[in-house]
């Protein structure tokens, strides 16, 4: 009896590989962000308006 192909570790690793591939592909296409121009570590107290997008955005 052969071992199942779709084991949890294999599928989980496939998910992570796809995410890593997306990040690498996107970095090659869009470039990496400049960490020295990144927003303050914490939004609260930064004085800056939130600039992220949310699922509730119209």
């Amino acid at each position, binding site marked *: 009896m052969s071992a199942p192909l779709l084991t949890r*570790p294999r599928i989980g690793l*496939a998910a*992570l590989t796809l995410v890593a591939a997306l990040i690498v592909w996107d970095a090659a296409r*869009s470039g990496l962000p400049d960490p020295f121009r990144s927003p303050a570590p914490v939004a*609260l*107290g*930064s004085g800056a308006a939130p600039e992220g997008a949310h699922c509730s955005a119209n």
Partner: protein
Amino acid sequence: MLGRRLGLGLVALALVAGTALAAGPRAGLLVALGIGFGLVLEGLRFGFAGPWRAMIAERDARGLLAQLLAIGLTAALAFPLLAAAPGELQGAHAPVGLAMIGGAFIFGAAMQVVMGCGSGTLVNAGSGNAIGLLALAGFVAGSFLGTLHLGWWTGLGSLPVISAQSLAGAQGGLVLTLGALALVAALLVWRAEPGKRLPARRLFWAAALIAGLAVLNLVIAGQPWGIVYGLGLWGAKLAQAGGADLAANAFWAAPGNAARLEASVLTDVTSLTNIGLILGAFLVMRGRADPGAPVAPLAARGWAGVLIAGLVLGYSARLAFGCNVGAFFSGISTGSLHGWVWFAAAFAGSIWGLKLRPLILVPARRGVAA
């Protein structure tokens, strides 16, 4: 086992540090938060779709009560924070509309078919569930396709944005929200079977931890925890690379969305927490002595059904202004009326979805390769 867990922890730390170095400290913190969500959701088995199924099919209210507790704890901190820093923090507020209600209903049905909601699909994929991984691919495509038609759907009719704060102020809105949560909890306790009314201790811990992480998400990102926007962005980037011209689309031509389309995914808040969430779920699965049995194989039309259901999940979540996380959890915990309407519509959809599930998740016949 301890050595493996330490190794997995070091890998996670290295990825958080690498993200911080590449994209700034906020990006690193958001990946760390996402990992935290994944660890709690998978490690303490805190879910959304499963407890709704348990309430509908078995009148077991324990998991859903834990969800309401987590939302209430988050609201207790989020309301004062939003009131104190309105220029720096924003809630998950969206209008109630026809497409929003229909989208939530369909989402509720689809999440019972694939046995995973927005966060659940990410957790399932990361923890090695093949149905979750295939549904995630559909979710990415669907949430992108939803953005293409969002303007048409919202044009069918919607109310202005209504929040608990706009009805009763910050303090009154919090009292209103906590009162409504308590009312729903009481209704659930009344409807539940005896012995299925008090959540297990792990669910209390999970609710507190999820609430803590959700508040940190608000404080660090300036916006509540969400899932769908990031997945739609991934789909849009892939579509654009495939030749799609999104400049003429109202959603992607909006300045903020156009900028995100051109920028790295490592600058997008929900992408960062989504990536961390998948990783966190993977770490829990690999850290267990037994990673668990793989999901039972499906027939070819069963796998096709999962992919389509994932697509529907993504599309409907976009129309509903969020999934169980962005609309239900974050909407209610930051005062949006659309979160409550989403809850009612998606719960009704779940009842329908449970009937559809056996028709779509067709198992492979023994001895026949799927």
